[in-house]
């Protein structure tokens, strides 16, 4: 949170800059949002008004679009995204315990981000690797047949899990 506060100022400048590049395009909103997210990792609420001004939409409309698409995030996300599966196959093979231990390791709840901004923890309905259940993903890497002792070292590959 603190970190986010610190970065609020430069963020707005960058946002204005991105917005200005889209000013004369016809249906700019989605690509504009994607670009903001790419640049900043998420779409901060402070970005909504400048984006609305730049696209001639109402702020509430911009928010509506952001909240409609799962791809857009409105809180800062960590450098690494951990996705633990909560699908049926994983569930019956102890997925709940895996989630619990990952939570303990990272010290955050679902949807949370570690204070050092290194990890964001999310869950997904099914990772599509049921044959490896229980499974999880870090960024683009899959990890299957998980057992609680393995978790710490997996996470450590991506940096310190923010103890």
């Amino acid at each position, binding site marked *: 949170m603190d970190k986010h506060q610190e970065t609020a100022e430069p963020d707005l400048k960058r946002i204005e800059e991105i917005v200005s590049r889209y000013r004369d395009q016809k249906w700019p909103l989605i690509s504009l949002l994607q670009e903001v997210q790419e640049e900043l990792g998420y779409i901060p*609420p402070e970005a*909504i008004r400048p984006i609305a*001004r730049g696209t001639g*939409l*109402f*702020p*509430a*409309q911009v*928010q*509506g679009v952001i*909240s*409609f698409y799962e791809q857009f995030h409105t809180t800062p996300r960590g450098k690494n995204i951990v996705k633990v599966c909560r699908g049926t196959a994983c569930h019956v093979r102890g997925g709940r315990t895996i989630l619990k231990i990952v939570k303990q390791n990272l010290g955050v709840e679902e949807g949370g981000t570690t204070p050092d901004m290194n990890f964001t923890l999310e869950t997904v309905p099914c990772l599509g690797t049921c044959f490896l259940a229980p499974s999880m993903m870090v960024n683009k890497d899959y990890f299957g047949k998980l057992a609680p002792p393995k978790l710490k070292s997996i996470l450590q590959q991506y940096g310190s899990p923010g103890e």
Partner: protein
Amino acid sequence: MEAITITLNGREVSGYPGMTILELARESGVEIPTLCHDPHLAPIGACRICLVEDERSGKLAASCVTPLEPGMVINTESPKVVERRKAIIKLILASHPDSCMVCDKGNQCELRKIASDMGVGLVGFQKIPQLATIEEVNPFIERDLSKCILCAKCIRADHDLVVQGAIDYIDRGFASKPATLNDMPLENSECTFCGTCVAICPTGALMEKKRAYSGTSPVKVSTICPFCGCGCSINLEVKDNQIVRARPGAESAVNRGTLCVKGSYGYDFVHSAERLTSPLAKVNGDFEAIPWEQALALVASELGRLRRTYGPGSLAVLGSSKCTNEENYLLQRFARSVLGTNNIDNGSRLYSAASIIGLGAAVGFPGTTNHLDALEQSEVIMVIGANLTSSAPIVGYAVKRAVRSRGAKLILVDPQRTELASFSHLWLRPRVGTDMALINGMARVIVTESLLDEEFVAGKTDNFEALSKVLEEYTPDYVEGITSVTSEEVSRAARLFAEANVASIVYGTGITQHITGTDSVMALANLAMLTGDIGLRGGIFALQKDCNGQGACDMGALPNLLPGYQCVEDAQSINKFADRWGTDLPSDAGLSAIEMIEHVREGKVKGMYIVGENPALSFPNSTVVKEALASLDFLVVQDMFLTDTAKLANVVLPAASFAEKEGTFTNFEGRVQRVRKAIEPFGDSLPDSEIVLRLANSMGYPMPYSSLQQVMDEIRELVPLYQGIGYRDSETKDIYRAELDKDPLSKRRLFKGQFPSGFGRFHPVQYESPGETPSNGYNFTLLTGSILHHSGTGSKSSRSPRLSEFSPEAYVEIGESDANQVGINQGDKVKVISPLGEVIAAARFTDTLPEGVIFMPNSFPSTPVNQLFDIVLDPQAKTPALKTCAVKLERT
């Protein structure tokens, strides 16, 4: 256009191409239920409840979005339709809460109505989890989105009708709901509480906030909003002689399903405990209630005595821009034929006399030259000297719609960044009081670059030579020097305005309340006539602050003009009225409102009769005005409340509110609309018309009217503008026929580009420095104006419990750097001082004002801003300058 014929429930009916099945069905008297459809909104076909079957194919289609096709065989009630409709209703009800049973929307809930029509009960489905009620502290609107059926009507109304953008859907799936930005309560959003979404919501999801369950009322009375001059139709719902709800009148061409917060929620002043219930007489400095006969006898004998002793010129009458046409007509007749004086004026003197005179001289009739609809269809709109959002919200909606939905270009001329700035194509920020130089500058560009409509100028106007001579001086550079608007911007604005096929001008008190108000109006008329945008296409839209400012003037509540702007000094006119009324009439022009006060101070006017106006607050230099009124031999005030003016009276007569009487108001467009009685007068109060008639009786000069119908008949006969309205309808026992607003418009308009006198006249006008600039340590420029939640001096709005709860007191808007300079923090009490007086209010930081300029609202009786102003009149309109003056600030 070829008609399209289809079979509808076995009957052949025809419509026009592009018409939907639903529209044709409604026109043919066939009921089809709808939830997401509203005639004011573009259809989206979301709810599917309006399904009908095309019997040729057996296909079901949503009738609200399906256009007619030749040969269709439509059944609106086939078994298939009914079955599907039932299924849809059941699905919706499955996620509906049990609190539905005691919902205040009651039988107005379209969902419940459709369910009961179809015999679907309220229970019997697996309930889907519901969203919680949102805790809201505003006094107007309550949201319970568990009752939301996601029809998006509120969102569409908010975006497409009032163009506010306060709400939109947030999230998806079951969690989806209409929400504000960051899902905050409405009071923390852009919402203006216009109530449009509440009126349009088909369920109890959006509701008017109520202290208690009041149920619904079968009694609906269609009437006109008593606040600003837009003239919105409202339907009052009445229960046990109480107004329980106001909704937008469905069929009004003015407000089209919308209202502003005053129209939706401000009516509750009618039930204020502060209403006067009986006549009062001042005895030894205190008011005592007295019966009507005694009060009228007292007033009659005192006015009679003054007239006998000092002559009719010692009496003066102030009529009201908030009273009906009939009342103002009676009042001016009372002044002229009973008292024998032309000393009659009305409150619109304070803000719109410049329009009456300026437009009267330039285009030949005194007022707006086209319909609101024509404004909305303009390609370029110039808004100058008007904060539409607060002073004429409905016109503001029309301008925003024009910009957003029709691609119109807005030229905004305002030193203040008003809401419209974000809709503008070009925003010019002239120094306060220099608009006229800017207008002349634009006119010069149009002339020198030959952008004018030469045919129009040559064929329909005169005095062009004189105009172009005066304009020579107004080069863009010269104008830049005066206004600080860059020469490029002046030229751009001029080209934009002139090159549009249809352009319109909207102006308000920022133009008229300066000492050069009349000249500025003429300059605007010049501009419009140069390009021919004066009514044949486009037009000039002169705003009115009060609900009947236009009508009071039309009715001749003016010192120099008889009803219909016929001059008192013209023998033929005065004789016409003298003959009709069977009495001699005074033929010298009387005193205008502010002149009355001057004559009181000089001891020439001894008695005044003030109806529905509050000069103690609305006039400049209140201290002097109050002293003057207190010094009168006799003052009688007729009002709903004990206003600051009424407190100074010898006799106070209690008047009925707009909801308690019949009559007509004329809106700023010139549309004459019916005011209807919804409830009985409060206490012993009486309609103003009734009081004037009784008073004339008591004075021994009865006026021969036994009904308001007869008054309107006479108006029709004697006022050319009003011919063709007000027929009797004996069947409905209505005083006037409902279609009053149908015709008189055309009489006012330049529909065929024809000026009443044949020619429009250019008036070369010169810019003069407003003389209200900072000096001598008075280093800030104060701007005053109205704000959305109040109107006039606040006599009504400050007594509306909801409006005053939401907006309880005055404030000083100031830029942060200006504030720092004086050492003022946000919220500090600030003393605003002019050479004439001082007022105190809390500071509010804003980034909407230019440096050195502060803003104060002028509608709070507890903070009488007008006492800071000296009495300086526009020499032509006799309107006092009340817009801006030099002040200094002190922290208290």
